[in-house]
Each structure stands twice: as structure tokens, then as C-alpha cells.
């Protein structure tokens, strides 16, 4: 049963400010104007060895007006929730558009902003799926649970330190535009993490929980969607095994990659590469472009034929899930890679129109009331095999390889070719069986080579939905929560580095 929109949010003068701003933008000649009032509550809790190091509860409230005026974008934002301020911010947005138009004129450009059409959604309301709002749980209880888990870990042999953290977000958005769409939305997300550290004679190793961030409520910490008890119980022995593990031998290995690691490879090498703004060059100076350029739509061989990747803004509990995006577009799901071929992009309304799409697929998002919506990532997910093949089945098909679990370090180039990832743990695979952990490993590959080497997928029982709270993009910099689901998968012949050797030791 969905929760009602928080009455403290609906008590803001949402429509009054929107009406004033949109009316003023119209008077000044804007062809399109939209108004967004947001409240984002963001709680960060961090414990060190069971004691609270940081507890910060931050709430950001403000509003923004975006206009298309004489074919140019203009944007302004403010925090005073008054009609006068709303009118002034609308005027500032138009003034910014005029600066843009003047610069365009000086450069001889006649490019004009146009938006793909979208049906009007009047008075639409959407609330994400959760049981218990984490902000309704007393802070003492939140701290108490993490402190207890920390103490339990610290009591185990070989654990010298424990870091625990919890991020909780409640995001409320009200949107209105000159076409008549108005949406009011609310979503909740959580990211708990615990890391155990062993320090031994000048060396140290760590082991972190694999529980992913989720679009769920406090119930996630009490047994719904993750077995915390089981995971925390095995952390000390996993850490001890890691401390005693041999250093990996650098070379070429077959890899079986667990969803807790593969989600991040998907994020970097598929999620960002299929963003239309990057493919068109709009992130070129900062986040970068994409090898998956628009001229390759429908023809680029992205990976092996078993590769099927979807973009989805509607999946239950997804971190990028929402009912309507920040341009009033009803969210959807669609294919990005089908049978190993690039077949789709993530779009906003302007770029959809520019490239001849009938409609945006709802990927405009701003991370705060003071930021302009940019094209951001949907939940981008690798679909599992139809038959229910287990991770053990995949491991059984490998003679010499590594099984990699959990994410750690990540990096990819600005066109999304060359990447390097590490993980929480890696196990040697010998003749189809696990043969203990190794350490100091990283895998390095080029996107299409890597996905082209994907030989087998796990089935639905191996599928897991993870993601991140902190995907960075755009200037000024914005962060977005993004979800990624995937099964376990097996890759042939991937380069594995020894990171101690990479450090020249």
C-alpha cells in the first residue's frame, strides 16, 4: 500500500509559487517554462568502532524555474518560498536565456531548443514502494542497530576496526509546466554498509558487506530484502581468509562475476555509454563522450548474442525508479542492447526531439532544487538467462579462473572503452571448483571485448538488484542514485593484474 505524500511537503505553497513563476515566464515570452519545488532530506550516520563519529541530518528545500526563451535555455533557482521570489527567479531564468541567445548570436549559431512532445499529466501523484520511512525511526534506534552490529564484528578474532555507515534519503518533488502537467512525488532510499578491518604488522586488509543500496525503507535493515545476520556472521572468517590469501598471479583468466561486482561494470561500460547526451557530445568536456555514437544505433556489436540490457525507470525498489521525470515525462522501460546489438539510448525531451524520437524515455533528473535537470541514468540492467543456471553451474564451466564478488575500485576512460575494476573478494577457480581467496587483483578490459567474451549467464535465481547513491555527472556536478540488476555471468580470457606489481613492488 503506497504511503501518502508527506503532508509537511504538500503544506508548502506549491501551486501558488508555480502559478506565479510560470505566469511571469509566459509574460516574458517563454515558449516553455517549468517549475520544480523540492525537499530532499538526507541523513548520514557514520560509526567508528561502534561509536558515533558523524550524524548529520540535512534538509534541502528550494525551487527552480527553467525556460525556453527565444530558442535558448535559461535556468534559475532560489530558496525563499514566496510569490515575489518565484517571480524574480522566473525573471532571472529568462535573463540567463537572453545571455545564451546573445552568445549564440555572436558565434553565428542558429540552433534552437525544442522539446519532444509528452502527454499532459494533470495532478499526478507517485510514491515509491517502502514499508517504514527511515526518518520515522528514532535516531537512537538507527545508531543502536549499527552500534550493535559493529560490536558483534569487533568481538570476532582478527577484526581490529569496524566502520559502519548509513545514508537515508527522502526525496519530495513537485513539478508544474506551462503545458499543464503537475506531478507530486515521494521516494525513499537507504544505503547501509559495514567494513571490518584487520591490521597486522604494517599490513592491513578490509572486508565490506555486499548488501546493496535500495529503494526500500527501514524494513531493509530488519530482514526484508537482505539477510544481514548471515552476512555479518561470515565477515570475520572471510577477512581472515583474505589476510592469509596468496597474491594473485597476473595473467589471463576466465572470470565468473557475481552481481555484487558486475553491477558496477554494467554501470560504467553500458549505463554511461548509452546516455544520449554523451553520445552527442554534451558531456564531452567533463564526464566524456561515448564510443556508442548515434550513427551506430542498430548496428554496433556491443557484446555476445546472449547480452540483453534494458533501461527501466519503473522497477520496484530501483534507485532510479520514479513515476515522472523532471520534465514531466511518464517513466518507461525499454531495450538498450538486444542480442548483443546497441538498440537504444537514455534520453531527455530536448535530445529525443533532436534525434527524431517520438518521445523522451524519461531520463531527465536534477539532484537538487538548485540544479538544472540533465539526462541521467535509468535502472540499467542485464537480463538473466531464461533457464535457471546457478552461479555454481557457471563456476563448473571454468578450468582456470577467478570468481569475483563485491565491488571496490573502479575507473573507465572518457569514451567508455578501457576499464579497471577490483572487488571485495576473488576466489581461484580450478577445474570447476573454488580453491580459496587471492588478493591484490584487478581486472582490466575494453568494453566491447569484455562483453563479447561473455559466454554464459546465470538464471533468475542469481539475479540481484543493486546500484549506487552517488553517480556523478554534469557541470555543475550532480549526483544521482542509479539501480542495476544482473545475474552472475561468465567471461572468457580477461586480463587480470597483480596490483602489488602495478605499484612497482
Amino acid at each position: 500500500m503506497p504511503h501518502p505524500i508527506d503532508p509537511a511537503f504538500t503544506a508548502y505553497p506549491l501551486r501558488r509559487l508555480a502559478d506565479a513563476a510560470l505566469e511571469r515566464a509566459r509574460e516574458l515570452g517563454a515558449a516553455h517554462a517549468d517549475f520544480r519545488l523540492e525537499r530532499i532530506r538526507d541523513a548520514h550516520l557514520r560509526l567508528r568502532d561502534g561509536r558515533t563519529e558523524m550524524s548529520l541530518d540535512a534538509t534541502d528545500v528550494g525551487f527552480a524555474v527553467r525556460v525556453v526563451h527565444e530558442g535558448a535555455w535559461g535556468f534559475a533557482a532560489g530558496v525563499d518560498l514566496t510569490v515575489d521570489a518565484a517571480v524574480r527567479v522566473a525573471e532571472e531564468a529568462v535573463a540567463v536565456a537572453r545571455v545564451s541567445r546573445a552568445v549564440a548570436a555572436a558565434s553565428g549559431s542558429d540552433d534552437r531548443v525544442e522539446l519532444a512532445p509528452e502527454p499532459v499529466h494533470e495532478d499526478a501523484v507517485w510514491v515509491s514502494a517502502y514499508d517504514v520511512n527511515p526518518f520515522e525511526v528514532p535516531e537512537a534506534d538507527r545508531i543502536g542497530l549499527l552500534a550493535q552490529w559493529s560490536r558483534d564484528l569487533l568481538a570476532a578474532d582478527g577484526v581490529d576496526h569496524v566502520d559502519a555507515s548509513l545514508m537515508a534519503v527522502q526525496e519530495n518533488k513537485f513539478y508544474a509546466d506551462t503545458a499543464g502537467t503537475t506531478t507530486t512525488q515521494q521516494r525513499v532510499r537507504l544505503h547501509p554498509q559495514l567494513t571490518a578491518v584487520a591490521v597486522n604488522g604494517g599490513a592491513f586488509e578490509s572486508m565490506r558487506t555486499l548488501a546493496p543500496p535500495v529503494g526500500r525503507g527501514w524494513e531493509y535493515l530488519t530482514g526484508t530484502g537482505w539477510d544481514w545476520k548471515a552476512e555479518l556472521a561470515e565477515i570475520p572468517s572471510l577477512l581472515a581468509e583474505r589476510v592469509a590469501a596468496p597474491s594473485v598471479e597476473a595473467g589471463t583468466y576466465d572470470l565468473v562475476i557475481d552481481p555484487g561486482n558486475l553491477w558496477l561494470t554494467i554501470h560504467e561500460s553500458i549505463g554511461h555509454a548509452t546516455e544520449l547526451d554523451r553520445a552527442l557530445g554534451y558531456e564531452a568536456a567533463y564526464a566524456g563522450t561515448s564510443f556508442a555514437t548515434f550513427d551506430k544505433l542498430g548496428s554496433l556489436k556491443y557484446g555476445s548474442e546472449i547480452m540483453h540490457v534494458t533501461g527501466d525507470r519503473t522497477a520496484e525498489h530501483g534507485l532510479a525508479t520514479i513515476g515522472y521525470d523532471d520534465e514531466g515525462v511518464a517513466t518507461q522501460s525499454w531495450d538498450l542492447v538486444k542480442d548483443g546489438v546497441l538498440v537504444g539510448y537514455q534520453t531527455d525531451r530536448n535530445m529525443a526531439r533532436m534525434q527524431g524520437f517520438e518521445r523522451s524515455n524519461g531520463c531527465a533528473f536534477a539532484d537538487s532544487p538548485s540544479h538544472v535537470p540533465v539526462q541521467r541514468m535509468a535502472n540499467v540492467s542485464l537480463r538473466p538467462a531464461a533457464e535457471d543456471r546457478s552461479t555454481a553451474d557457471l563456476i563448473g564451466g571454468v578450468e582456470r579462473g577467478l570468481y569475483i564478488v563485491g565491488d571496490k575500485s573502479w575507473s573507465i576512460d572518457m569514451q567508455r572503452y578501457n576499464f579497471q575494476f577490483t572487488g571485495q573478494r576473488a576466489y581461484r577457480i580450478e577445474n570447476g571448483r573454488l580453491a580459496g581467496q587471492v588478493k591484490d587483483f584487478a581486472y582490466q578490459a575494453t568494453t566491447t571485448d569484455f562483453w563479447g567474451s561473455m559466454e554464459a549467464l546465470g538464471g533468475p535465481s542469481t539475479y540481484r538488484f543493486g546500484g549506487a547513491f552517488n553517480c556523478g555527472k554534469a557541470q555543475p556536478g550532480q549526483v544521482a542514485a542509479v539501480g542495476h540488476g544482473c545475474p552472475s555471468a561468465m567471461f572468457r580470457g580477461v586480463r587480470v593484474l597483480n596490483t602489488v606489481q602495478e605499484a612497482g613492488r
Partner: protein
Amino acid sequence: MTEAKTVTRPGEIVERALGLSRADGCVVIVRESTTANLRWAGNALTTNGLTRGRQVTVIATVDGTEGTAAGVVSRSGVTVDGLEDLVRAAERAARDAGPAEDANPLVGGTRFGAGFDDAPAHTSIEVFRAFAPALGEAFARARSGGRKLYGFAQHEMTSTYVGNSAGLRARHDQPTGTFELNAKSADMSRSAWAGVATRDFTDVDVAAAEAELEQRVGWAARQVDLPAGRYETLLPPSAVADLMIYLAWSAGARDAHEGRTVFGKPGGGTRVGEKLSTLPLTLLGDPAYPGLACAPFSTAVASGDASSVFDNGLPLEATSWIADGVLSALPANRFAANLTGLPVAPEVDNLVLKNTGADRSLADMVASTKRGLLLTCLWYIREVDPQTLLLTGLTRDGVYLVEDGEVVGAVNNYRFNESPVDLLGRVTEAGRTERTMPREWGDYFSRAAMPPLRVPDFNMSSVSQAS
């Protein structure tokens, strides 16, 4: 909820919130900021904006039998009517939090209080009055020259007001400006980048930056493919800044003391006092450094390895993290300093690397290079192994081959794996320090001055096809 205007003078917000406090101690931080930005792609402006924001943070401290607790609540757009609710929320959070390890007496006395009762400083789109037309002209030149320009210019003014129940009153106005220009050939196969950090945009020369990039895109007319390997490499100040910033961020005293970072000494304690470089390199933070001036007092809305909410208002002074090649200090709040036996050394919002007596420019260093690589900048830097502080990342927007003192062409991009700590021990030359814009971390940390470095064996781990 009815409409309510926010209070216009942040100093008044601080006083009102302190007056509402019922806790044993209270700190109030108000940050008022305005930003103006222009963004462009393919020789045309895209998303541009003007924003203003205000964040009010209340830190309540509550004494108990087991120690003092702190609760931190932060809100934007706070009205006068909302202040009491904010203060009470912080007090509830303090009661819920339990004793804070980093508890210390609040920093007392009225210091840095000039202008505390005055209105905050602002910026506006007017900061681009001369810059914007120059940008339009650069677009026109690039278009006629078959190049595309991409980039971003932002000016931010943040006024910070801090007051506490022990009598502290502090105010600081911080202007921060950045300009990044990226030029590409029409087919996007050649790319060059320049970045500038500025306080007010009066010193930004768009035409000069565009001309430099035209030259660099021209250098790339000859492409040379080179494999992965260890190369003599000239790192420009921007790349050095990105590596040194990460080093500084990883240098917290407490983590080092616990043996959890590269700065921990095997067997216990820290590596303070250990020689890291044979060159007389000094890495320092100095709030009064010319051109890089920053807040002269600590401000923290959260406690961490090097910061503490109890240390708000602590004076900042010039601090050498490395002096003449020797690790000389690690960032430490008062609690960490007490724990580790190291001096209190709060973080400073600028970073300077100097090679005492060096006066050679990057161009001079190119001229004396027999064969090596000249980078433009580094990108997507992430930590691979905290034990060695091994970082990975990529070159971007121009790697050039230098032969017999001349740039002879552009080389493919690379992924590197390198530790900045290890690298300091292998550097054979460091040139003249100059103000620079860190490409990777400039969003968070733009006040840096660095020299170019010569590294005899920089580890290019693999080739990146990206252009």
C-alpha cells in the same frame, strides 16, 4: 504552511539560533552562496544557470555522565519561524547520539568577526559581462577553423558565518571561479584541454586559452601509437595537483596511527619524520597564500578523521605536510592530535607543492627532454590499494611525444597505475610552481599551485582507445 520570508542577514540567524539554544553548547553555521554558470558544447551554450542557496547548520552539544554528545541538523531555506524547530531537532539528535569521541571544549572568543553583522557577498550573471562575448567570439573562430569547443565556467560566492555559545563569531567570504575549455577537431578524434581557476574572471583570457588549444590540436595532426609500459613522463601542474590532492585527502592522522593508510608505520605510529623524496619538495596549506586565499578558520558540519564539529572556529595557519622532502605533519583535529601525539593540524582549503629554488617552466623541461611523454591531465582517478595508495586513472585530452626537446606528435591515451607517495620518491625534477586547475578534483578543490614534475618511469598500465 504560510509563506514566510527568510531572514536576510545570516549573522542575525546565528544570534537568534544561539539565543534559542537550551543545550550545554551550541554552534551555528550559516552558508549563503550564489552561483552563476555557463556551459557549452559544440560551439553553443547549453545549460546555464543562476542559483542562490542558504544552509543553516545547528550543532547542539549535551554533557552527560559518560561524556559530551553532539547532534547536527542542517536545513536550507530556513525561515525565522523554522529556527526553533531546527535548534530543537539538533538537541534531540545530540541526546540520541551518545558521547562523541572527539568532544572538546568549543572554541571560544570573538575572532574573525569582521562583517559578521553585514549582508553576505553575492555573485551574479554580471560576472560574465566581458567573458560571455569573448566566449561567443571564440565559438565563431572555432567554427571557422573546423574545431568544436566544449566547456564550463562557474563563479560562486560563499559567505560563511560561524558562531557558538562560547563566544566565537567568525565570517569569511570565499569567491571560487573555474573555467574549462576543451577543443576538439571536427571528427572528434583530436582533443585538447585548458583549465583556469580564478577569483573573479577578470584574469581569464578566453582568446589566449583558445589559441593554446588550437596549437595543441595542431600538434595532434601527427599521431604516434605507443604501447603500454613505463615511460619518462612530464606531468603538468594540473596532473600533479590531482595526485597531491588525493595524497592529502588520504593523510588523516588517526587512520595513519591505526595502521590503516599508507602513512602508518609498520609496528605502530605514523611515518611522520620519514623522508619521502630526495628532492627538497614542500607540500603545504596556507590560508594566506597569495592568489589562493581561503578561510582562516575551521568549519565542519560533520566530524571525520581530520575534522571535528567541536573544532569550528579553530584558527588555521600555514602548515607544511611535507617539508624539504620529509613527511612533517598529518591532518589532525584536536581529538586525533591527542590520540596520536601529533600536533593539531586542521585541513586548509588550498594546497601548494614547491621545489625550493626551482625556476624551470614546463616548456623548459620539455626542451631538455631527450625522449618522453608530455601529459595534459589525468581523469577518473580512483584508489586501487590503500596500503600503497596505488591509484588508477587515465590520461586525457592530449598525450604528446617529446623527442630531442620538441613535441613531435600526439600519442594514444593510457590507463595508469601509480602511487603519489611512491612517485614522490622517484621524481627526478620539479619545476617552478604555478597556480593550476586540477582537472579531476577541481569541482571540490580548485585552489592549488603545483610545479611540473619529471618522472623517469611512470606506469602506463594499458592503452586507452579513447580520444
